């Protein structure tokens, strides 16, 4: 394996990556949970599903945050996470519109 040049290596960019991971990770978690809440098993009204949904928000958000530091630069972190958000929210609103 050849050595990576300094441009190829992961840049620290701690603050922006942390912010992006925290905020977009949380919004992404809400997007996934929104789809699950409306269209997952039991629909909106299943007993205790609201609690279940609240519980699963945080692990999704935390894993996204954990892996945000793998992005090479802060800019890439923001762009990719923002796109992921747009895609999943689009799916949610599309499903809502269809149903």
């Amino acid at each position, binding site marked *: 394996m050849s050595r*990576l040049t300094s441009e190829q*290596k*992961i840049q*620290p960019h701690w603050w922006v990556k942390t912010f992006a991971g925290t905020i977009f990770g*949380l919004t992404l978690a*809400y997007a996934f*949970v*929104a789809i699950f*809440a409306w269209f997952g098993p*039991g629909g*909106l*009204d*299943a*007993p*205790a*599903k*609201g*609690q*279940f*949904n*609240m*519980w699963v*928000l*945080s*692990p999704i958000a*935390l*894993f996204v*945050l*954990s*892996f945000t*530091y*793998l992005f090479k630069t802060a800019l890439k972190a923001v762009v990719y996470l923002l796109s992921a958000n747009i895609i999943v929210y689009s799916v949610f609103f599309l499903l809502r519109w269809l149903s």
Partner: protein
Amino acid sequence: MRVRGDILRTYQSVHTWTGIVAGLVLFIGFYAGSLTMFEEEITQWATPPSHHLPQVTIDKIDNLITKALDTSENAQQGFKINFNDASSPMTWYEKKGGRGLYLDNVMVHATLSAQGDLITRTEPTNELGDLIDMLHRTAGIAGKVGHENLGVLVLGFASILYFLALVSGVIFLLPTLVKTFFSVRKNKGANRFWLDSHNLVGVVSLPFHLIIAWSVVVFAFHDVLYDGLDLVYGKQPIFEQAKSAPVNYSASQLPPISTYIDKVNELTEGYSIKYIEFSRLSTQRPSVAISVMNTAEMMRNNTGDFIYMNPYTLAPAFSSISMSEDDYYVSYVASFFSLHFGGFGGELGRWLYFVMGLLGAFLFYSGNLLWLEKRRQKKPIQSKSNRFMANLTIGVCLGSILAVVVTLLASKWLYLINAKINNSYVTCYYLVFFAVLIYSFVFGAAKSAIHMQKIIALTCLCIPITTLVAITTPIFSQWNLNAFSNSAIDISALIFAAIFYYGALKTKKRAYFGERNSIWAL
């Protein structure tokens, strides 16, 4: 496994900084959490046996309730029927501060004499178990933000960092994991030994730690997370609103106690009832909480599951047990709680959680030591930041342990001098904690570590001695041989005395014969 060098270095930084920021509060949360596995036993152990009145047989309970309701206004508002032999059959509050932790609650205990006459005894409650639970949830950080404890939010934030530390720790351990997993190298110096045991404990208990980190984040921030979910749900309510019945009942209309027992047997299988607690009896929202145990099930908490219903109509309101096949989300949510509280596996499960909690505390302590080793310089006097962190680590960790141990030791003596027991516990805890913290900064980490471990060992040793003195000496008239029923606490104290004494000897050896260019050398 090969992982790119820059990824390893990135996650090593994440691990180091999240660990050092969150480690100390999590240390307190973990070791106090271990103790909360035996919260009820600790309270029982600390309460003088003379406070509890003898149990009555089930057929006499209705008679007891009728007589008590005739004599007390407070009992008509709410009371509790206990079914275990160590508690009084019936209790109610003469004075209670409402929800949450209050230090000067006064409780009336009631029973029937052999002739069927009502006997009552009024005593301040002992909240030692709840205080330890409070320490577990807040790390001893006082204060409130809105209606939430500041300490809970601090631990919630620390748990986010803790989650990051877990993931990053695993990532940067991956390349060497297979080779060095079970090797605890003692011959390669103290540093290696600490690193190997830190990694071993971390990897072996990783699922436990991921669960704890996740659930603490949920416990701390559920209000915020629910607020966000409201947007997702739109106009639909997340929770069904409880319907209040526009009927006023009074306690004298309560059905016999066997009705509730039958109802529980009808609703569940294999559960035994611990207690039945009635509240708000003369309001429009009366409630009865039935606490049930079944160690063969995944219970919400290590102290049991509960079923809420209307005490007059028996209409079910809420239960932590799923009552039908369609309620699968109820069981999922219950299992999340259970995994945090160790509500499964019975006695063995509780002891396992106790040990894993202590190992968790060890993880944070050893992590801090490794941070210090990594920044060690080859000179006798270490950098200012290093000395500060060492003093803080010793002061906070050993200070918090000693503070709890001293409080446990003081408990019986405080009853002897008739102190306001719960307030004295709190004073005792903070006094000892800050004394150790100051000691650590005045005399330095190396000396304090040795002295504090010795004092902890000595204090632990005095706990079973006090118990022995209490049950054999007439001046402790409140204590009798029944006090020996919770001897597990005294025996554990003895074991910890030995562990800390051994620790003190090892620390002393390191101080005088270990590496000279170290923060621990004397």
